[in-house]
């Protein structure tokens, strides 16, 4: 850079570097503590075996599967829900209702996850127990809808935002041709706004993978590999919360750091994807 560096610039630079270093530090912490396991080549063991500390098994396969299943299932529920809601907000509803819905969705982003799960614990869990007829009512099927409710506002706001960015001239053209709102959506807005939709879905998926309280309080936390959605399961995040270990040398400790590392890498990949999709699409335009 050719411009003179001032003292104040160094202050700002320091702040940015500090923040960047913190990000790296979190990664390094995770890496250093899980390194012994990675070096010994026990990683595959760890990823593919199950959790039974009294038998010397510290695998996280069931948790990994539970996390992925939970996130996917909640996305499957939440995506159509959010898309539908964003249709209503962007095109179908009259102005007043639209404003009401949008404020409601905004408000929902502010509801703490612990409150979601607290309410669901006393509302949805007994209900699920009756419906399923067996089990405790705490299962993947119980946690997924609540998780879906959690990520829906994020996705809706993203969807609505990308619909808004569709140029007015394009939507006016449909109006001028006598099209109705849903045709406007289907043939103009969605084709224009789908990059935003993809980004919203990626973000929603990331939030679902990363949430702790809902799976911890509602999914049952059983450590076995589940073979049906109505069974109890433990996500990676809940696993970290439950296995409180304070001894650097213990296997439990190293194993939760591997969980952490997995989640971190997952996030990094997700962010890279997001960035690439944004770059590609903006480059194309």
């Amino acid at each position, binding site marked *: 850079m050719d411009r003179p560096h001032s003292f104040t610039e160094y202050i700002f630079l320091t702040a940015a570097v500090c923040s960047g270093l913190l990000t790296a530090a979190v990664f390094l912490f995770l890496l250093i503590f899980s390194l012994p396991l990675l070096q010994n080549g026990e990683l595959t063991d760890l990823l593919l075996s199950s959790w039974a*500390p009294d038998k010397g098994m510290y695998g996280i396969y069931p948790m990994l599967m539970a996390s992925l299943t939970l996130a996917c299932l909640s996305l499957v529920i939440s995506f159509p829900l959010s898309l539908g809601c964003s249709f209503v907000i962007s095109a179908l509803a009259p102005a007043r209702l639209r404003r009401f819905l949008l404020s409601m969705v905004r408000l929902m982003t502010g509801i703490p996850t612990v409150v979601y799960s607290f309410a669901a614990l006393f509302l949805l869990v007994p209900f699920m127990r009756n419906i399923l007829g067996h089990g*405790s009512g705490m299962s993947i099927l119980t946690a997924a809808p609540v998780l879906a409710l959690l990520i829906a506002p994020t996705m809706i706001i993203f969807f609505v935002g990308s619909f808004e960015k569709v140029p007015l001239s394009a939507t006016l053209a449909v109006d001028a041709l006598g099209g109705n709102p849903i045709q406007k959506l289907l043939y103009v807005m969605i084709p224009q706004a789908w990059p935003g939709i993809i980004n919203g879905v990626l973000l929603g998926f990331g939030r679902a993978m990363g949430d702790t309280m809902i799976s911890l309080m509602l999914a049952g936390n059983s450590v076995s590999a589940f073979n049906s959605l109505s069974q109890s399961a433990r996500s990676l995040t809940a696993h970290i919360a*439950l296995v409180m270990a304070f001894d650097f040398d213990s296997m439990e400790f190293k194993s939760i750091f591997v969980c952490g590392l997995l989640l971190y890498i997952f996030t990094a990949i997700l962010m890279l994807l997001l960035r690439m999709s944004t770059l590609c699409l903006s480059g194309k335009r």
Partner: protein
Amino acid sequence: MKNRFHLFSLICATLVLLLSSSSGALASDLAPFTGQQGSLRIAGGTAHISVMKEAAKQIIQSNPKIQISIAGGGSGLGIKQAGEGLIDIGNSGRKATDEEISKYDLKLFKWAIDGVGVVVHPENSVKGLSSVQLQDIYVGKISNWQELGGADRQINLYTRDEASGTREVFWKKGLNKGDISAKANVVVSNGAMKTAVAGDPFAIGYISVGHMDQSVTPLALDGVLPNLDTVRSGEYRVSRGLYSLSKGEPSGLAKLFLDFILSPSGQQIVAENGFIPVR
């Protein structure tokens, strides 16, 4: 905030001395705390929390300069955190293993006896089990209440997390170290276990005798019902001591706190919370 505390400390001392006489504790048992200050960290077994909270309340009311923080987390966590020196007093619902004691130089204080009883929903018609049946249920061999004379519904197993002392005792003495099916639902505290079983008509779980109330029904094990009398007499065998432990000889506030738990006032709190005092 600190300054405020100094400011009001004099008023507090007199005010609270008056109060403490009404809260049931003998002033003489609280006397050692006079003039003390500082903070005390306690964590571990969830069965202990109710007793710890009440004891802390009485101590702090007698001397507001003392801060006591109480966390759960389970017996394993209590032993590990105390061993690492992260807390002053660890609570454990099981005796620490010899390995743990020697590794961390732990000192154990047993201040109550507690039984671990099998509980079901009050509407359940099954009233008792044999040891063998219990083991079969938890390993998953018996999976329907019908096989035990109950309704034709699947048995919902509940168990505690691995850090739990209750689980340790139940596994050792109730199940004779038999396996616990991985399909069992894991809950993280005695309170949560009670809640879960009370809300699930086809559940089976186990909780500390001190936590039992009308919301759940205890099952007789080999003909003996778990309650305070049978546990005290030793007739009901799935019992344990409730321990507090410290790294090395306790000193300062930790020692005073442990002394208080073992004093008549402390033991009264133990009894009021449904456990069997050791003195």
